[in-house]
């Protein structure tokens, strides 16, 4: 906002990135980061700015993903139609859900979203005639190269950030934050809190839903365990939001980078470092350590949340001045 120059430069870097980094593995990670930027931004709008904690982001993510997959498997259409449609249908779910559940406040709303997540996962598992259940759905990928997916993901991420930036400077944004700060005060200021909470949830659901649809197109395969995953999607969305900074426009961008990196470090055993040590030293216990670290990424998420809440309660972006001071001070001391 204040430095459009910096943002344009960042956008430029992101635009040329696939031309510079040609390795598919890193391009894949970048696509994941961009998808998490969109999901994290969606989460942040309803949870960070509007104060209604979304504990079941996977409900909308999976719904968008299945919309795209079913368009292809059942109707023979291109799964790309899932992008607009997955977003719109996620809104169609968010609307009645919000209408009912926004009568609940605080943790009860969060629990209701968790329930929605679980209900969808079970439905997608059980309704085999439609979804093939646990077998999942295979979708033909359109492109061999990763670059096209990268640019679609980039477009969605940029749109997410720009939309939320605009919204937060408008009347809607003021209303969202007022609701977060004090719902009773907001009501008595003439704000229809139910309506604006629903509006916020619908925008979030749209962003998360289209990202789900992109996921289907990109990965070419989905099953209920993956796209409705409580821990890999819903909790990851919360982490992206809080690590980056709850209620900040660029928080999800930073959070997505950090969280995808953390996830990848654990998944790959420190980018293969542990495997390498195991192989070169021949220590027999290295393989079990490697396996343990791989399994421990759930635990690592929990620890990360605790660290962030203790030391950076406003996230990396929200607490940037604090972080800077930390480094400046340690430099001073060194001198």
């Amino acid at each position: 906002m204040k430095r459009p120059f910096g943002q344009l430069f960042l956008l430029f870097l992101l635009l040329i990135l696939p031309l510079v980094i040609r390795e598919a593995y890193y391009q894949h990670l970048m696509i994941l980061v961009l998808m998490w930027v969109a999901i994290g931004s969606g989460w942040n709008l309803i949870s960070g700015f509007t104060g209604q904690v979304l504990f079941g982001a996977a409900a909308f993510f999976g719904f968008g993903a299945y919309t795209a997959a079913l368009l292809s498997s059942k109707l023979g259409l291109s799964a790309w139609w899932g992008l607009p449609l997955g977003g719109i249908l996620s809104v169609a779910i968010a609307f009645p859900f919000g209408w009912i559940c926004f009568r609940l406040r605080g943790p009860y709303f969060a629990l209701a979203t968790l329930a929605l997540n679980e209900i969808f996962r079970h439905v997608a598992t059980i309704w085999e005639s439609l979804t093939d259940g646990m077998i999942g759905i295979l979708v033909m990928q359109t492109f061999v190269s990763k670059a096209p997916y990268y640019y679609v993901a980039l477009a969605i991420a940029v749109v997410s950030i720009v939309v939320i930036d605009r919204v937060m400077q408008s009347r809607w944004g003021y209303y969202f934050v007022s609701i977060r700060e004090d719902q009773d005060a907001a009501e008595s200021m003439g704000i229809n809190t139910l309506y604006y909470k629903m509006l916020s949830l619908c925008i979030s659901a749209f962003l998360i839903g289209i990202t789900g649809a992109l996921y289907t197109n990109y990965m070419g395969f989905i099953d209920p365990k993956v796209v409705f995953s409580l821990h890999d999607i819903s909790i990851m969305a919360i982490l992206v939001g809080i690590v980056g900074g709850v209620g900040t426009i660029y928080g999800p961008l930073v959070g997505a980078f950090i969280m995808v990196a953390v996830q990848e470090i654990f998944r790959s055993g420190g980018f293969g470092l542990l495997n390498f040590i195991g192989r070169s030293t021949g220590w027999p216990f290295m393989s079990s350590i490697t396996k343990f670290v791989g399994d421990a990424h759930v635990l690592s998420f929990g620890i990360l949340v605790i660290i962030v809440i203790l030391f950076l309660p406003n996230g990396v972006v929200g607490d940037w001045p604090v972080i800077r001071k930390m480094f400046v001070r340690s430099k001073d001391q060194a001198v």
Partner: protein
Amino acid sequence: MAFFKVREIVKFFGGLAAVNGVSFEVQEGEICGLIGPNGSGKTTIFNLINGYFPLNKGEVIFQNEKISGLKPHQICQRGIGRTFQVVKPLKRMSVLDNVIASAFLRRHSRAEAQQLAEETIEFCGLTHYTDKLAKSLPIASRKRLEITRALATLPKLLILDETAAGLNPHELEEAIGLIKKIRDSGITIIIVEHIMKVIMTISDHIVAINHGRLIARGTPTEVASNPEVVKAYFGEDYRA
């Protein structure tokens, strides 16, 4: 037809009748004082007017329209602004943003809302705090922010719940000045206040309640000399 009227309103909390069949009227342009000992039901009456609690019985009529049953935001849209006894600042927003958020009720563009907010902040004497976070304000200014935010919704009727409680004598004078200034700008006011000096000097008309029931109604001097009121405030044995 009265500008504002409550008729036979009743509110139960479990078995306790916090408000039990209270009726009164307020004329346009006046300041109506609502008094009563602690726990007599004043805040509850405000919460009923404002739609924060549903009524168990009775009705609230504003400008010939029955407003009981509407939601708080609808009642605010009809033109009734309120403050909270326990202040509710939007803590992590600046004073300006607090007021802009409520100015958006009547102004649709950001620029217009900001202009109305700035005017209202100046009217209420908070200009000094415009860019401060609401949570950093001292209590007197928080109370004033409550009033400012309510005023920015451009109400026709303003209900003030103990906006002068906890102020020092100097702040008290300022608060009285502000309330008079609001009345002079054409806004009707219902005010709850414990400080008798305040309520007696500014009210055109006073309604006294005790245990959720109306005990007296009239001009400040009439009410002050009413034996029921004296008894409610000073106990049975008090002799003037």
